[in-house]
């Protein structure tokens, strides 16, 4: 019987197969991943916060805490795709300023909430299209282009507003930044969750997602294998612009006013979130799950420090250290192990 069964065993046509001593199952692989490490960090910070402050474990407090990251994370999803594809957009915070200023102008002209939202999204798309056209049509490096548009977009806001501000948005406009969908779940948080799922599906389950990785790993090879590299990059710049427009709607609605300095320095936090989430800054790899966990980590850190009365500028030291630390430590570790 036993001889018979071996005869019937399926045989690899390529010859005898090497059988590894130990199988690395998908489960162990997942455990060793950057995302699970990050999740561990998130849980640790959560526990530390819970121990450090008696006000932390409160559903409404935690719900407020999500505002620390929801707007940034929306942009971070699109930015993650853009960075995976080997480009970067440093103008996102300035797109927010310009979109918010445009919404303010529309509000002053007497338009209602639907028109305001549409204005924010369209201005975001237009800004993204401008960046994308300069990068894909003229072949300019995205870092210089977006440093330029970073000044240009916010500069236009300063031209329009000077040292003034737009106030008096309609009451129903406040929903996007202050409303709740059900119980403690804010509109922004629900939007964040929905966008996370959409981006995860697009990046990990569609042809377009595979094309993004291909472009980031080797743009020339991607071109030769039939991927329209310029079009992929253009779509990603448009998406980043659109996300910045959405973030502008949420942020403007939450603050209830527009100043030209709105969201200053946010591009740094968005890039930090993406890199902390395990996306390779040089392009080619990364996941949406990582970015989502990184969003929670950053939100928890800033919220926890806020509960401990740490001023915002000191928090930015933590963010900066986090950004350099998460990239430096694995490299340092590798170096020390080799030595």
């Amino acid at each position, binding site marked *: 019987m036993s001889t018979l069964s071996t005869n019937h065993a399926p045989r690899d046509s390529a010859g005898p197969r090497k059988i590894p001593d130990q199988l690395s199952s998908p489960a162990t692989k997942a455990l060793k991943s950057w995302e699970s490490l990050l999740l561990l960090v998130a849980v640790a910070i959560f526990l530390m916060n819970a121990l450090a402050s008696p006000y932390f474990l409160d559903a409404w407090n935690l719900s407020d805490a999500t505002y620390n990251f929801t707007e940034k994370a929306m942009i971070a999803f699109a930015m993650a795709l853009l960075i995976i594809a080997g480009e970067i957009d440093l103008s996102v915070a300035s797109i927010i300023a310009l979109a918010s200023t445009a919404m303010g102008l529309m509000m002053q002209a007497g338009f209602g909430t639907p028109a305001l939202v549409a204005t924010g999204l369209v201005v975001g798309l237009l800004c993204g299209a401008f960046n994308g056209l300069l990068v894909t049509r003229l072949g300019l490096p995205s870092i210089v282009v977006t440093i*330029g548009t970073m000044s240009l977009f916010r500069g236009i806001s300063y031209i329009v507003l000077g040292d003034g501000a737009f106030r008096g948005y309609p009451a129903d406009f406040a929903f996007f930044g202050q409303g709740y969908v059900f119980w403690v779940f804010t509109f922004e948080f629900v939007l964040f969750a929905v966008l996370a799922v959409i981006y995860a599906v697009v990046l990990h389950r569609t042809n377009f997602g595979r094309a993004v990785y291909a472009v980031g790993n080797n743009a020339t090879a991607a071109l030769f294998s039939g991927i329209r590299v310029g079009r992929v990059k253009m779509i990603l710049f448009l998406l980043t612009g659109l996300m910045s427009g959405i973030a502008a709607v949420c942020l403007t609605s939450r603050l209830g006013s527009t100043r030209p300095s709105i969201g200053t320095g946010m591009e740094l936090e968005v890039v930090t979130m993406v890199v902390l989430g395990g996306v390779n800054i040089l392009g080619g790899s990364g996941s949406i799950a990582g970015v989502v966990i990184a969003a929670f980590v950053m939100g928890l850190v800033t919220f926890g420090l806020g509960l401990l009365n740490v001023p915002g500028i*000191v928090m930015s030291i933590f963010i900066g250290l986090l950004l350099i630390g998460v990239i430096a430590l694995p490299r340092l570790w590798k170096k020390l192990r080799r030595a």
Partner: protein
Amino acid sequence: MSLLKSREAILGAAIVALLVLIATRFPAFVEPKNLLEVFNDTSPLIILALGQMVVILTRCIDLSVAANLALTGMVCAMLNVAWPGMPIGVIMVIALACGALMGAVNGLLVWKLDIPPIVVTLGTMTIYRGIIFLLSGGAWVNSHEMSRAFTGVPRTQILGLPLLGWIAIVVALIMAVVMSRTPMGRSFYATGNNPHAAVYTGIDVGRSQFLAFTISGTLAGLAGYLWISRYAVAYVDIAGGFELDVVAACVIGGASIAGGVGTVVGTILGALFLGVIKNALPVIDISPFWQMAISGAAILVAVTFNSRSGRARGRVILKSAEHAQ
């Protein structure tokens, strides 16, 4: 002919054209005394841009220069408040050392850990700013707390130009010699042009990037003292966003973000171009709020122009063969 076609000549002509345009309506702007004042006002930008150019040459970017400037400036101001008798020479040496230290931190992270420069300097930019807050507790150091010498020395007039302007000229001369006449200066070009070839010619690419960051940091430190003493105030947000103007000056001056291309003269002209615009805006009665958008537009125009002129130029190996065609 090649001199006329050079980017420096075109940029120089653009600046002259700009001045002529302004002069047609406001002749007082182009009086020598005012032009010297414009140069003096642009001096910190020139000093910073020269450091940034070296970093950009080696295919890196230093976004922490403005934060470095602000932190060094705060250190100098607080030293001056604590020990008003401390000679300005000592303060300037401390400023150089403080700036060099911060630049070296950037450089070490790039060299030893191979972290992309944009990530390193985005991070240190916020860290250095945060340290200013930790040092000062968010308080301002105002002019009445600073000693007369502290604010006075950079204003000392020599031949009609304040010392601040002369320092920029000296820095420019030193950089011009270093970049064109020393092995270190040439190694920056080699590193940026072709890192692989640079390695084969015996240049340590990481080390020259480290040196570039240290130079940039040192100059930012020097500019830190000069800035604080010129405006006679030190606080956390001083020179916020100025790193973009610095990068803009380099890009307008012809430096390529891809590395290996850039000159001292071009960078100075790039800084002066921005300086003339900044000083002319109030004169021609345009709100200073236009400055930011104009800088941004100037970067975009310059980088587009750079890529156009760069694309057309091939490398001519055989001159005679080209003429024979």
